[in-house]
């Protein structure tokens, strides 16, 4: 990452705030357990993956979650609700301010750090995952939506299991 090449202007400020607002809503959607709405943050033809930084650094493609359409996101939520067995927990995402990488017509690219805290029902809160979103957003009817979100996580020794999206 380089220092910003131009002074902040109104247009970039607006876009950065729009991305930050989008990300905040995304995080609260998950943290408030409104997972059925989580796929709405994506366009139909999307890609979402959760991949260890270790693999990204090695140039290896395997992700622990890999969805390449919105239907697969819905399947993840249905499985979480109906099928998978896991310890009940709260999620709490704490997001950094986005960095704008590209602000084109076809692609708005940005990345944003996150820390995801997990609190199990014994009341103890742990850092479950730290990492970053690497995003490609597009406009649908004028509104930002995710075309692609790669969750690149530093915390590559996962505590027990991962079921809730990041």
């Amino acid at each position, binding site marked *: 990452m380089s220092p910003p090449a131009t002074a902040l202007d109104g247009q970039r400020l607006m876009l950065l705030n729009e991305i930050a607002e989008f990300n905040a809503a995304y995080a609260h959607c998950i943290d408030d357990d409104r997972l059925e709405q989580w796929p709405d943050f994506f366009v139909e033809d999307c890609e979402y993956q*959760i*991949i*260890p930084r*270790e*693999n990204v650094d*090695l140039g*290896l*493609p*395997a*992700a*622990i*979650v*890999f*969805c*390449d*359409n919105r*239907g*697969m996101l*819905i*399947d993840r939520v*249905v*499985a979480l609700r*109906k*099928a*998978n*067995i*896991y*310890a009940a927990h709260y999620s709490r995402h704490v997001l950094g301010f986005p960095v704008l990488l590209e602000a084109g017509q076809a692609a708005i690219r940005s990345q944003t750090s996150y820390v995801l805290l997990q609190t199990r029902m014994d009341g103890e809160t742990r850092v479950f995952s730290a990492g970053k979103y690497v995003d490609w957003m597009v406009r649908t009817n004028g509104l930002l939506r995710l075309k692609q979100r790669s969750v690149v996580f530093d915390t*590559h*020794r*996962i*505590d*027990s*299991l*991962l*079921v809730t999206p990041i």
Partner: protein
Amino acid sequence: MRMSDALATSIPRSVDARLYHEPAVFAEEQRRIFRGPVWSYVALEAELEGAGAFKSTFVGDTPVVVTRDADGALHGWVNRCAHKGALVCRASRGRVNDGNFVCVYHQWAYDAQGNLRGVPFRRGLKGEGGMAKDFDLAQHGLQKLRVSTLCGMVFLSFEVKAPPLEAFLGEAMCRLVRRIFNRPVRVLGYARQNMRGNWKLYSENSRDGYHGGLLHLFYPTFGIYRPSQESAGVVSEEGFHNAFTVSKPSHTGGYENYQVEANREIAGASGGTQMLRDPSVLAFRPEFGDDIALLIQSLFPSVVVQQIQNTLATRQIVTRSVAETELVWTYFGFADDDEAMTRHRIRNINLVGPAGYISMEDGEAVELCQKGTAGAEGWRSFVEMGGADVVPRVAPIGLDENAVRGFWKGYLSLMKGTIEVLP
């Protein structure tokens, strides 16, 4: 050391819960099993391509490094400097181009084989200090381990008394390893999962066919009814190793119909069941010239080899402490896979691993057993599903705990010292 009561009274069909909790048992396991006459999986040769390649990992809780030297030979050594015991190799993997592994603390330098090559100020300076005149580099190398490979899987052993690798695994297990590793593989990535439980709980879990359809509810929830699959479990002679195989659904008449069939079954069985929006995660492309769609092969003491649809992986068991176990998943495909096949494997990976639809619960099960057996002095498990003995083969799977008893039979024979040398 006196054998703990928990060990002395445990039998394959009923083990004392303290085996999951006593630090003394854990220490004894490191000595008798992980540093004993067994072979522990540590790497794929595909991770060690070219001279100077290395990988740091563990055998049990002992840090080890596996290397490839300039002549292409593999070596293994304990990652512990002969001087002060510091880790010599600090990176998880990489390549040492000059052939030297140098401890950062005092720059003792070792070659890829683990021989000590140099000690700074060995002769002192201007007549002061230095090592004694009779200091012999050859006497201060790293602790070397035996290395053996089977079709690109790399194993280490601490013990000269370990039988040859293929004898240790037995012919039935070797045949299944050769089936998967039938041509050069390519690593697709790693996933690491920390289980808050003893390593033996996971070892039981991977040999437990009984829990499959009961804990992992993904298939039944999505109405994927698969009645006509043939399955079998094969346990090695002394009980240590196990392989479950499940064939493709025979009534589909071919894998190309599998996905369509699965969808139709989902639709047909939709009384209360969910629909999968995208069943491509289940898609299966035969690639081994047989009907096996699922293989879970547990090789004592440290690895599970799996083929679930087209996901291929090794799961290395790292024993972090008596109550914590790391599972390292190494996903791979074949070197000749095209881009579409790689993408297909990566979609299939949704099924497995720490976030896998049909595997994530294993972490939860291990943790529940660790928590539930805390403080359970004198409590013993009851492992008698499908009988009380260990038989070489069961079919179908899912109605017995034969391989779990096999694990305990092998484990207890090593821990109680009733077998010193494996076959």
